[in-house]
């Protein structure tokens, strides 16, 4: 069916509504949807702390710096994983030194061999405890999705948005953006919460200083 045939009944339907009965587009701003979870202090460290609190509530884990991340990976006894090529220079040597096998490209016929995936976060949202992944800065959609553990690295130059509203107003023109608020989960079976359905069972956000 062509577009104008398709639109005709929609136009006819809408034309039945008298102008006097039309609902105007409401004008609203951040204040209208203010939540008690919105952080009041917008200093970067304060925002990171606010993010950590919210992320913790949705069962995410935060780490700061390399040692912290390494000990978390060790706790999970990982042996092999995926590291995004752009993070390779920073991360690969010390992970390998710790005896962990690192892949910087992902073979999708072998997705279960990667126990973890480390990719860049495009930013985080403090109000909701959300990690933002964008196609243009996340090297591999599958690398951030299929391993049991996903580590989103938040570099210094990536924004920490105070609110969901701020993040929505800065989506840019990336064709694919994911807001990840905790590990993958379901309550389909008798309402019982199970984490790690199709996506990561463990979701980590790792704040790191960029080397450059």
């Amino acid at each position, binding site marked *: 069916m062509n577009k104008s045939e398709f639109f005709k009944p929609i136009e006819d339907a*809408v034309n039945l509504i008298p102008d006097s009965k039309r609902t105007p587009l409401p004008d609203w701003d951040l204040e209208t*949807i203010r939540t008690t979870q919105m952080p009041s202090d917008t200093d970067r460290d304060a925002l990171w702390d606010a993010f950590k609190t919210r992320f913790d509530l949705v069962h995410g884990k935060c780490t700061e710096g390399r040692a912290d991340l390494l000990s978390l990976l060790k706790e999970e006894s990982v042996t092999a994983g995926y590291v995004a090529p752009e993070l390779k220079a920073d991360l690969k040597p010390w992970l390998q030194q710790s005896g962990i096998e690192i892949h910087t490209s*992902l073979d999708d016929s072998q997705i279960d061999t990667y126990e973890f995936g480390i990719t860049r976060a495009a930013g985080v949202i403090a109000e909701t405890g959300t990690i933002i992944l964008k196609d243009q800065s996340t090297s*591999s959609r599958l690398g951030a999705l299929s391993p049991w553990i996903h580590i989103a690295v938040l570099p210094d130059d990536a924004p920490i948005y105070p609110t969901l509203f701020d993040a929505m107003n800065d989506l840019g023109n990336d064709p694919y953006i994911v807001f990840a608020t905790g590990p993958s989960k379901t309550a389909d079976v008798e309402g019982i919460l199970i984490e790690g359905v199709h996506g990561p069972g463990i979701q980590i956000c790792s704040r790191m200083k960029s080397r450059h």
Partner: protein
Amino acid sequence: MKTKQPIDAFARDLPPEIRESVYVGSKAKYDKRLDSLTQSFAAPDDIRKLAGQIKQHTLENLPEYLGSAIEKLEGNGAKVHYAKTGDDANQIILDIMRSVNATKLIKSKSMVSEEIHLNKFLEKNGCESIESDLGEFIVQLDDDMPSHIVTPIVHKNRKQIANTFEKAGLGDYNDDPQTITRRARSFLRNKYIEAEVGLTGGNFVSAETGRIALVTNEGNARFCISANKTHIALIGIEKVVPRDKDLAVLLNLLARSATGQQLTVYTQFINGPKSEAQPDGPENMHVIFLDNERSNILGSEFKEILRCIRCGACLNVCPIYRQSSGHAYRAVYPGPVGAVLSPLLAGKRYPEYADLPKASSLCGACNEVCPVDIPLPELLLRHRNKAKREGIKKASAGTPSMAGWSVLCSTPAMWKTSLRAGKAMDYISLNLIPVPAVQAWAKERSLPPFRGGKFRKWFKDRQKNK
């Protein structure tokens, strides 16, 4: 107990364990919803009203907003298709699959795909179509129907699911929810990789950028557009909102209303095929906009129902849904939203569903919880009116005739006599009245003592004493 309304009959025969699962599930979601809204917002009602206005405004100006979304999507490299009916949409999907020599499709949860019975259609045409949402996957294995918009297997318990998995060859009987989930995880991973096409729905489409917002908790919709080269988004025309920023209002409400979460775990925004440097994901993106009676609804007295964002809150709060479960509504959309929508989506088969609007006590709870403030009780009344106007028999099944009442009220002598007779009711058991509706009513209740006629007596005495 004899009953003439199909939904009552269904509720009467519902196995107690299903009623229990549905009740417990609904109540839990209802409580969480309330907590999450009141903990977050000073005036949650104002935000519901705002969301309702945003959606109502968009619907009233749908040609412009839909046109703008289409323009943006095409500008970003997506191919847009137009489906007048469910059959058209099914055919478009099959044609797209054939054009890329695909026989395997993996899909995330989409109510619209249920509405058009996509899985059955593709299977008939030699294609595999696999549900990847855990609940929907189980429904598919059982050849069952979802009974709730958000939690499709709220009517099943773990034992039933374990049996289903065993029968489907997904391991020995094991009813541990974690084991069930892990088994589905490993089975479906291969399906994601094997499928050539991923199909999703879309919760919202921004007219400003063409951005499709898609929410899931499990991550299945992410997989559906990461592990294959063709993505089809099947979306009802009513999903459009004016601006990206309006998504913040609706996303804030959707998860809280559906599951009591602040945000759904994964919110995806897609506005075209993957970017060039990205190794994973679709090179071709197709967006199918579906009408399927929606433009008729838009031109009718029921247009407000098109605001619905499919959160399921009106189901969870509805006393009729809680007693009867989603399957009682005999259609894809159950509960109050289904009672309004299903008869309308049925098109020519409207009379078959014309009884559904009677499945409500009109208590108003559905309107109070609706995140887009749909006046559901009012729409149910309009439906009852429409059925009466059109003389649809099914809609009046079990309704006592009002003809006797009308004669009584308009004949003073008869009225007086009946008031006197009313006193006799204090001494007669209602069970003796051979009307099934009266007997059903009387089974659980008793009448208060009759007090009729007092006013007339008072009035007469007053006149005398003047």
